[in-house]
């Protein structure tokens, strides 16, 4: 491989060579290289194929704005990322990279046939070319297009990396570590303000890294930079974050930063996060993000070897890499001339400087003459040649009248272009700050801001180092002052400034038909100037519509290099000035950001909170299968060897009905309601009457929303005159407490009552079955468990196995039952004691599935399963739980609204299938006449459906319009296999007389 590294140039560490590969070929780079600089050092320009036309593409830029050079990067151990920008990716020993969107290889790519068929793929081709026949869209066109077009392939294996996040608060956040940002950080840091300075590059310095010969206050730029970095590092109030991109700017100066921690390391320490999301709240923000160079728009401007002039200068000065041996410059702006000069001085042959302007500053022409560089002032470029790398350019003179003369061809292996510079106002735009069009500079500049934010330097249109330093210093000092500190901005003396005048790029004039020119505007989405003109011809006038129709600026680079050029082409086509055409909106993130960074710690086990009960460990050790219930994981069933779920649940059900089962009910929501007005509060919240409930007794409580629909239910025990122990559904605990607090705080603040969540204070063990009392009697102290003293729906405090208990005599199974509340730290020990002692009754642990079957056999509802937020107490058959004589409770007034009184409301009923073996699907729709045409009139749906081992048949609950009046009638349930007939019944299937409760 030829070596394009130039001795004595650049900042990369020549003594630290690293080996990496691209498309299976091994290369050597230096520590400090990006993949792009390392490939260019090896003479590689061709790095990818374009999105739509599969055109060969090279490296356009030297920064995060890169639209072309996207590669798949493999950092080993399953760490693969598609669409990594080669200009950002730092090389390290062992890095493996590959090109994308090509088959079978980058140099010979079948998809390149699209380039010849480009007329098919013009703006809006999706909507036009492939509309007929319609049936072909899903099956043929779309899959083929999707397969051929596109970027890299997403990895299919889970991301092996971990990610981090961190909140930070500071006085001044400075985004961008170039001249302006450094000056701002210095001023703010010296003032004593807490400062965070972030920059997306691996090294702080911005454009200073490409300006080794400039002198700042008498120091060479790199010496000044070294001293400045040391000065900032010595300030304990300043945090400097390289490799950290400010991706989004949100309300109240909340800025998201993505810090890359380990992507540049060849060996990643175990457990080291790949990236960290900083969530910074800054009192003041200084945005010093610099400017992005614009490409010129002309035929063949996308060929490998065609590059931004500023990028070529960066590769030369920062990385010590020449981008070619014989280069041509084409420009509308002074800055590209400096690239030519630097390259010429480094020994690169500069074949010509083509400047499309009629006049150019004389000192530039003089400097070019001194270096014997041919200058073509007032010329245009009308084409390039070279299949996989530019080999020549076609240039033509343009008369003052705009007439394009005869062409000349100049051989070259690199073409460097500049259409001027676009201030990076992306983050400012995130704040919805307004933009103003600057006619002189042909650029959008920040207008009125909406946050405590300043811009500085090139990002605000202040080009040149001195302007950037002084603007940055002023912004830093002012930001510090606004944050309450005192600062006096320093002044800067700079030698060796670049010249920064120019005109903005329009599509360059040509002697050929511009309707056939492959003059690219958006390289990543393959949008050409003629596509934009076509969109205008087809009637699109708004830039937002043109953007979406042509996809200009919609790629992963968000049009960093294409937006202004696209706007200029649209403006010409619409014959309206640029500010009248407008600019599309920039949105976060500033650059593509991994999902992992957004997820932070929330992946794998920490994806979401998994709440576990004190007894969870026992269940896990004893083979429980778990199911998620809100944030909890609950034991679903306890299969024994050889059992499937059906067998396990049947066995568990049988054990409870015949002897004894035990169930972990710890997840039940619990609220302690205490105070002299506790009963009054209960009266107002719940439908039931509470005043007369004696201490030591329980009642089923039904809670409605103000709209009259069932919100929650649970058994409530009165412990004393002024203390209630309320239980809620597992999923409803937080919601119910919030609702109660809302009423208490804002409607009835006069009530002397307070609410405390005790869900996790108590571990709850439900013992259910005819032998329940026999089991616990020997172990309970202080409570007379006899039927007379402690009947169904009683509650008492005492001790069990020596630990305090709140013992409830309740049943959600229809059997004799207790719910033993013990302080949570004793939950597991009490459970184990009961399990041990219960062996003589064949005690059987059961899970939520058995609990569901047993309660359904008794017609006990589950709020949220049998109700869906549209059922009133009457709909659910719970009118008995409504205190008719109470003057008011939450939801009462709604129960008499007209809609609540119509006879045909959906009501909860039982269903028995004609075939007892059929277990209906929960959620299945119900119809009265199965022979009616589709769509059928659906009168309800199945809410609960199980196999009842007790009955040896299936049972179901359902809501059906006017269901209670249809008892005994047959309805039909269409399911995928067939339509099942079922009979409407009452809701209680087992022991309707409740004799077992008091067994």
């Amino acid at each position, binding site marked *: 491989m030829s070596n394009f590294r130039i001795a004595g140039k650049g900042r990369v560490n020549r003594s630290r060579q690293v080996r990496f590969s691209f498309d299976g070929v091994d290369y050597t780079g230096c520590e400090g290289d990006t993949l792009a600089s390392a490939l260019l050092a090896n003479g590689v320009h061709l790095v990818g194929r374009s999105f739509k036309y599969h055109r060969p593409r090279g490296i356009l830029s030297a920064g995060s704005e890169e639209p072309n050079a996207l590669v798949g990067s493999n950092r080993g151990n399953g760490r693969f990322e598609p669409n990594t920008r080669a200009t950002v990716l730092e090389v390290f020993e062992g890095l493996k990279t590959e090109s994308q969107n090509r088959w079978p290889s980058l140099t010979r790519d079948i998809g390149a046939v699209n380039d010849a068929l480009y007329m098919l793929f013009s703006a809006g081709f999706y909507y036009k070319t492939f509309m007929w026949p319609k049936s072909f869209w899903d099956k043929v066109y779309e899959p083929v297009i999707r397969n051929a077009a596109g970027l890299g392939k997403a990895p299919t294996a889970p991301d092996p990396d971990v990610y981090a996040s961190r909140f930070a608060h500071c006085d001044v956040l400075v985004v961008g570590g170039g001249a302006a940002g450094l000056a701002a950080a210095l001023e703010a840091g010296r003032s004593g303000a807490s400062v965070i300075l972030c920059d997306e590059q691996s090294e702080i310095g911005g454009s200073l890294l490409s300006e080794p010969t400039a002198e700042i206050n008498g120091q060479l730029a790199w010496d000044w930079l070294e001293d400045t970095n040391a000065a900032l590092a010595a300030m304990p109030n300043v945090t400097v974050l390289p490799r950290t991109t400010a991706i989004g700017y*949100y*309300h*109240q100066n*909340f800025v998201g930063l993505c810090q890359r921690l380990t992507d540049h390391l060849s060996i990643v320490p175990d457990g080291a996060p790949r990236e960290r999301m900083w*969530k910074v*709240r800054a009192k*003041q923000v200084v945005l010093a993000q610099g400017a992005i160079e614009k490409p010129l728009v002309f035929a063949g401007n996308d060929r490998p070897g065609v590059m931004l002039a500023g990028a070529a200068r960066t590769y030369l000065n920062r990385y010590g890499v020449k981008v070619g041996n014989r280069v041509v410059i084409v420009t509308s702006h002074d800055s590209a001339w400096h690239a030519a000069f630097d390259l010429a001085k480094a020994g690169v042959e500069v074949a010509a400087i083509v400047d499309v302007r009629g006049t150019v500053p004389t000192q530039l022409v003089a400097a070019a003459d001194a270096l014997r560089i041919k200058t073509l002032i007032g010329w245009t470029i009308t084409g390039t040649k070279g299949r996989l790398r530019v080999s020549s350019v076609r240039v033509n003179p343009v008369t003052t009248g705009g007439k394009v003369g005869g062409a000349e061809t100049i051989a070259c292996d690199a073409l460097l272009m500049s259409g001027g510079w676009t201030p990076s106002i992306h983050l*400012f735009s995130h704040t919805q*700050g307004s933009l*103003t069009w*600057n006619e002189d500079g042909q650029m959008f*500049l*920040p*207008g*009125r*801001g*909406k946050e*405590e*934010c*300043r*811009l500085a330097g090139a990002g*605000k*249109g*202040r080009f040149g180092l001195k302007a950037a330093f002084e603007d940055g210093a002023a*912004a830093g000092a*002012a*930001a510090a002052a*606004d944050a309450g500190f005192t600062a006096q901005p320093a002044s800067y003396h700079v030698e060796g400034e670049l010249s920064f005048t120019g005109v903005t790029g329009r599509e360059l004039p040509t002697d050929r038909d511009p309707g056939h020119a492959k003059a690219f505007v958006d390289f990543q989405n393959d949008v050409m100037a003629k596509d934009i003109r076509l969109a205008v011809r087809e009637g699109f006038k708004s830039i937002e519509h043109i953007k979406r129709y042509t996809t200009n600026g919609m790629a992963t680079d968000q049009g960093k290099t294409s937006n202004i050029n696209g706007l200029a082409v649209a403006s010409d086509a619409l014959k309206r000035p640029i500010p009248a055409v407008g600019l599309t909106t920039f949105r976060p993130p500033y650059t593509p950001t991994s999902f992992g960074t957004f997820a932070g710690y929330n992946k794998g086990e920490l994806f979401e909170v998994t709440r576990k009960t004190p007894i969870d460990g026992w269940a896990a050790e004893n083979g429980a299968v778990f199911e998620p219930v809100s944030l909890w994981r609950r034991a679903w069933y306890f299969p024994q060897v050889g059992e499937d779920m059906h067998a396990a649940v049947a066995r568990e059900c049988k054990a409870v009905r015949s002897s004894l089962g035990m169930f972990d009910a710890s997840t039940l929501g619990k609220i302690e309601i205490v105070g002299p007005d506790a009963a009054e509060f209960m009266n107002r919240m719940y439908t039931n009457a509470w005043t007369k409930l004696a201490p030591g007794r329980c009642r089923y409580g039904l809670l409605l929303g*103000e*709209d009259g629909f069932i919100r929650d239910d649970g058994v409530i025990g009165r412990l004393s005159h002024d203390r209630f122990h309320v239980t809620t559904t597992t999923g409803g605990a937080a919601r119910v407490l*919030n609702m109660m*607090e*809302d*009423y208490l*705080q*804002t*409607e009835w*603040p006069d009530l002397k009552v307070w609410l405390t969540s005790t869900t996790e204070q108590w571990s709850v063990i439900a013992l259910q079955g005819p032998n329940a009392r026999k089991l616990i009697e020997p172990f309970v102290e202080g409570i007379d468990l006899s039927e007379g003293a402690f009947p169904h729906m009683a509650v008492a405090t005492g001790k069990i196995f020596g630990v305090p208990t709140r013992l409830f005599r309740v049943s959600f199974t229809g059997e004799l039952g207790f719910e033993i509340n013990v302080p949570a730290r004793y939950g597991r020990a009490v459970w184990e004691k009961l399990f041990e002692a219960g062996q003589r009754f064949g005690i059987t642990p059961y899970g939520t599935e058995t609990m569901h079957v047993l309660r359904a056999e008794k017609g006990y509802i589950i709020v949220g399963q049998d109700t869906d937020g549209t059922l009133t107490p009457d709909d659910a058959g719970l009118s008995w739980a409504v205190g008719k004589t109470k*003057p*008011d409770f939450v939801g*009462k*007034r*709604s129960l008499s*609204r*007209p809609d609540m009184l119509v006879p045909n409301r959906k009501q909860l009923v039982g269903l028995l299938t004609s075939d007892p073996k059929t277990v209906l699907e929960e959620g299945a729709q119900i119809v009265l006449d199965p022979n009616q045409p589709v769509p059928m009139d659906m009168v309800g749906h199945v809410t609960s459906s199980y196999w009842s081992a007790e009955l040896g048949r299936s049972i179901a609950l359902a809501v059906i319009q006017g269901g209670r009046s249809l008892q005994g009638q047959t309805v039909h349930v269409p399911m995928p296999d067939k339509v099942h007939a079922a009979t409407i019944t009452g809701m209680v299937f087992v022991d309707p007389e409740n004799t077992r409760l008091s067994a």
Partner: protein
Amino acid sequence: MLLIRCPYCEAERPEVEFTYAGEAHIARPADPSALSDEEWRDFLFIRTNPRGRHFERWRHMHGCGRFFNAVRDTVTDKFAMTYKAGTPRPSDEEIALAVSASSAATPAEEARP
């Protein structure tokens, strides 16, 4: 993430500690049974949903636990002020006063080139 001033804690706290709780100053009628169906419907369902200034309720759920009221602009998302539950709807003058007291001189002008 917004910063919200809790009028009970007397401190600005991050938005994640708060939950939104709908429009403010809609008191539950003292005697719902005295309301017509239409009046009750309006109480239940009809809200102002303004573009701009909105009087609304928040709860410092993961903080002091209190419900309170806020004046927020639904376009800019900016809070003009927050105040304790049970205090009356602030007047235009009070809101203007709160805004001018909380916002220091804005450097928006300086963002201009």
